[in-house]
């Protein structure tokens, strides 16, 4: 990995948001004293009245977002993902999803981006908490191009969206002409021996794992599944049928996240062996996100090892 070419997707997020806000003055940003961590300083400078800082009050923040949407605004509600989803989950359920309001929830520094700050600040439960809610689109983009596409989608979609964003550096994966399609997985590498499904900060690791697997004679299909809800069930069923084994990896607990969502489809439609990689049902220890991902078997080598072991279980 060329670390010089790594991107903090928050930069693309705010650049896209500001570009959209220039076209449409109904777009507003709402935050919880997180102007800096959400990188909203530029937005505030351009449109001070359209940057609504509710202070350290996440329940009010999400409710205010719902009210702004009722009044015809398109609010992007930005906060550290752990507090946005954990603290304000009932508001997300009642005021956004159930009320079908046009609010864009932006979970910044999701996963273990705040690795060293400890498990209070890790947001490795947010897929589980959000994907069970009807009427809420859940997206975790993998690189700057996909982040841009996801933010543009969120702005034009009439309804609730949870954008799960990271600050952990990722390389470019998609060409600039890549079109983001909500609810559709991208096959970013073809193969028929095993499938790796990932999103967010794990997608580039999955691709590197596929390269390692090729050295072991295994042709690996890699699916980037940015949209966790609604899920691309066709791509999952096809992967199960055509490759016979699926490894999932995510910067999330192994309970209830991307892997859990995929397993719900696989077990009902096309049962095949699966390995779900993630944080193994514990509060993660201190360490950077990349350190922790390696620690939990999600280095390219770790994913490769899991995939090889899984392939041995195929058809047994």
């Amino acid at each position: 990995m060329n670390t010089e070419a790594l991107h903090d997707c928050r930069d693309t997020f705010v650049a896209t948001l500001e570009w959209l806000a220039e076209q449409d003055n109904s777009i507003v940003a709402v935050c919880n004293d997180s102007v800096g961590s959400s990188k909203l300083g530029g937005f505030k400078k351009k449109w001070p009245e359209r940057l609504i800082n509710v202070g350290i009050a996440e329940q009010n923040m999400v409710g205010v977002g719902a009210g702004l949407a009722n009044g015809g605004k398109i609010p992007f509600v930005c906060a550290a993902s752990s507090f946005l989803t954990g603290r304000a989950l009932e508001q997300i359920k009642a005021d956004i999803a159930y009320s079908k309001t046009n609010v864009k929830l932006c979970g910044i520094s999701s996963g273990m981006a705040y690795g060293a700050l400890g498990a209070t600040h890790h947001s490795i439960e947010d897929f589980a908490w959000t994907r069970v809610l009807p009427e809420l689109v859940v997206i975790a983009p993998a690189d700057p191009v996909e982040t841009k596409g996801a933010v543009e989608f969120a702005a034009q979609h009439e309804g609730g969206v949870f954008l799960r964003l990271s600050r952990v550096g990722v390389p470019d994966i998609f060409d600039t002409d890549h079109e983001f399609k909500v609810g559709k997985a991208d096959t970013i590498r073809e193969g028929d021996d095993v499938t790796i499904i990932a999103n967010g900060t794990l997608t580039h690791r999955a691709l590197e794992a596929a390269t390692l697997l090729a050295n072991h004679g295994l042709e690996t299909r890699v699916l980037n599944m940015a949209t966790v809800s609604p899920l691309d069930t066709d791509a999952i069923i096809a992967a199960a049928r055509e490759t016979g084994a699926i490894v999932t990896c995510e910067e999330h607990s192994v309970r209830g996240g991307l892997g859990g969502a995929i397993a719900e489809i696989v077990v009902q439609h096309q049962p095949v062996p699966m390995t779900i990689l993630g944080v193994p049902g514990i509060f993660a220890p201190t360490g950077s996100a990349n350190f922790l991902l390696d620690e939990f078997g999600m280095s390219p080598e770790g994913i490769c090892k899991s995939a090889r072991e899984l392939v041995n279980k195929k058809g047994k």
Partner: protein
Amino acid sequence: VNKYSGLKLPLDIGELPEVARQIRLLDLDTVYNAGAGHIGGEMSAIDILTTLYFHTLNIDPKQPQAPERDRFVLSKGHTACALYVTLAMRGYFPVQELNTFLKPHSALNGHPNRVKVPGIETNTGPLGHGLPVAVGMALAAKLSGSPWRVFVLCGDGELQEGSNWEAAMSATQFKLDNLILIVDHNRLQQGASLKETIDMAPIAEKFVSFGWSASNINGHNFNDLAETLATDAIVPDQPRCIVANTSKGQGISFMKDRVEWHHKVPNREQYEQARSELTQSAA
């Protein structure tokens, strides 16, 4: 037959008591027929709802999504039946639809749903949600330079939810003088009095200390209600809290100020007595 939906509005204050009496009768019928509801808190809120919908609010039932409409949020969502009756009487949907209250697949479930019922602004039920959403609505009006106002009705026990105080702080910071919170201060929550639980009194003083303007009124006096809800009562740059002193079960002698009538359903004898009292109270 809905004789109110065609009336020229706003009604004069003197006409409001009769409308409120009709809403109470229909609320009683609806709860009795459904075999469930929150009748005590509905009776305490009905005079407030009547004043809002038949005198104060700038709304048009034929255009429930008109961008410049005033917004009303029933934060104490468990008293949805009273709101449904009020909306039906105001012409948002046929009064006959109240017969479906709580029935399978009815749009009229136990808490208001904006997707299913015209005139509902946001789904409530869990307490402490209305005021934050109303702050967002009031902010939207300010950002757009629009004159519409936002009214929220919450319970006094509901103020125990901390989200209200997050919202109260922000309403002051954002100078939302287009926001009016009405507290249905009937002094009783689900299981006991507030005094025996977590007492919120004195409520007006709490809001004043948060930077709001606030006043205490008799929540069953239509002159008081109409006056304090009027645009004249706006204090520039300050959100406004109206502590409406009310009685749970107002209008029905054996329910009045009795905690057990939070969600008790009258039996046939009680229903008939309540109906008789409400009928006899006609002016």
